[in-house]
């Protein structure tokens, strides 16, 4: 396995939506490489005819009937939102406003 590069660590952090400071990225690079090194033993195991386990105990996944059921009232469900407007949760824009090349801003 190739050593983990700084760029790879940055790419993974982006995929994970995880902001890491520069010193965290550096520490993570070393720690992840060391942990992944221990996983090399798995590569040597012959698993050619072995199915991947999906459930430890045999079970059939169930689907419930497609009907509405009682759930939390909207006010209760929204009560913990960090920012809201009426019955809506407010978040910063995900689309750049017209005429701006950058990303949006929090309304």
């Amino acid at each position, binding site marked *: 396995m190739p050593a983990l590069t700084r760029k790879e660590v940055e790419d993974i952090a982006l995929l*994970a939506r995880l902001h890491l400071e520069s010193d965290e990225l550096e520490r993570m690079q070393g720690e992840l490489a060391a942990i992944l090194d221990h996983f090399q033993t798995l590569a040597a195991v012959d698993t050619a005819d072995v*199915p991947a386990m999906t459930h430890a105990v045999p079970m059939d996944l169930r689907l419930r009937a497609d009907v509405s059921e009682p759930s939390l009232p909207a006010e209760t469900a929204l009560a913990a939102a960090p920012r809201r407007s009426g019955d809506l949760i407010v978040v910063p824009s995900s689309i750049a406003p017209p005429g701006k090349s950058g990303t949006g801003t929090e309304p």
Partner: protein
Amino acid sequence: MSFAFWSAADTVRRVAAGEVTAAQIVETMLERIAAIDGQLGAYLAVDAIGARAAAADIDRRRAAGQPIGPLAGVTLALKDVLVTRGVATTAGSKILQGWIPPYDACVVERLRAADAIVVGKVNCDEFAMGSSTENSAYQPTKNPWNPARVPGGSSGGSSAAVAAGLCAASLGTDTGGSIRQPAAFCGVVGLKPTYGRVSRWGVVAFASSLDQVGPVTRTVADAALVLQAIAGFDPRDSTSLDQPVPALADALTGDVAGLRIGLPQEYFQAMDDDVRAAIARTASALVERGAEIVDLSLPHTELALPAYYLIAPAEASSNLARFDGVRYGQRAAAGDLTEMYARTRGAGFGPEVKRRIMLGTYALRSGYYDAYYKKAQQVRTLIKRDFDKAFRYCDVILTPTTPTPAFAFGAKATPYDMYLADVFTLSCNLAGLPGISVPCGLSGDGLPIGAQLLGKPLDEATLLRAAQVVEAAVGLGDRRPPIGGAA
């Protein structure tokens, strides 16, 4: 009258008989928590108002001749990954600081319905990721047997509180040993049920194919009592097993004559001498009472650790995607949505959680999936097959719960060193089996040692029966930890 170390079963009997009121028990417990927990750091939140109200309701019904539940008067502490209506639930993480859930987890509903009294929420490693409770974002929890040692993890608050008599019983969660390992370190009983036996609805998810809720108690009989109350089918958990739960108290016959106890050679390689001696005494005690020892091999054991530390972080990286600052929890200021997600998570998660999210994201990303996650799931099949074969020759498997007694704070130099603390417990989760840790003596320096018993799927009854015999033969008896247990 001191109720602190009454068993849950004793408490239920005495409350029902009118020897003591639930209110007296709650007041005593709240006083003890106020007096003792400053030395331990087990509790993150104490729900005095809720506990007093529950006690008053039990006492009122008893006085009126109305029915009271099978756990009436039993004080319960809940690991802080169990969602609790109206009581702060943090999962040991800053990202959930201040969140007050609007509902109860299934297990909490069932405990309340059985008249257990929830006294509070107890500390754990952040999102149950860790083996020492040092990863809690809030506070360290000390081991009541020696405050320089960790209580184990991730259910360290549960084990410390039960050991020190700051509740009658607790619920923990176990993804790779997080009930059994701290139970061993603190000298209490910890049971991880068969995967699917107990509903995960309302449990803050870590690794969904491995997580199970289970009891932490001072006696094996109490573990049976609490499991009985929480086990059974729940349609809200898609992996809940629709299987009957036998009367577990009836299984506690004290009889192990003819029971076949498997000793897997792979679990008896590297370990502390005191642990080796304690497990040998445990095996001998079982043989003296009529059990048979069967030497066996679980040849893929050494692959369990790498397989687990790919599968669990992979599932965690997916599960923890929900903590994004939108609907609940903390939110960091940012200019756009993507930046808000990243900054919220960067500020809210601690180092071990970040490490596991990164590891899991690495293992799941395009082009790496077959080499890591799929490979680990194939190895998991091999580990399961080892157990299937072993259980053709034995009824339960006996191993140490941990290679050493409780270690000192800061003793594990690298993340991987800490992962090795779970080396004997995580195969059980990978295979979905039930497992229990029961105290089997003290080390030379006075620290508890745990014996682990693993059972066939859904056979908690046999596990409990064998564990109770171990408890009677080599358990700690009336020995109590210096913190909380001193007369």
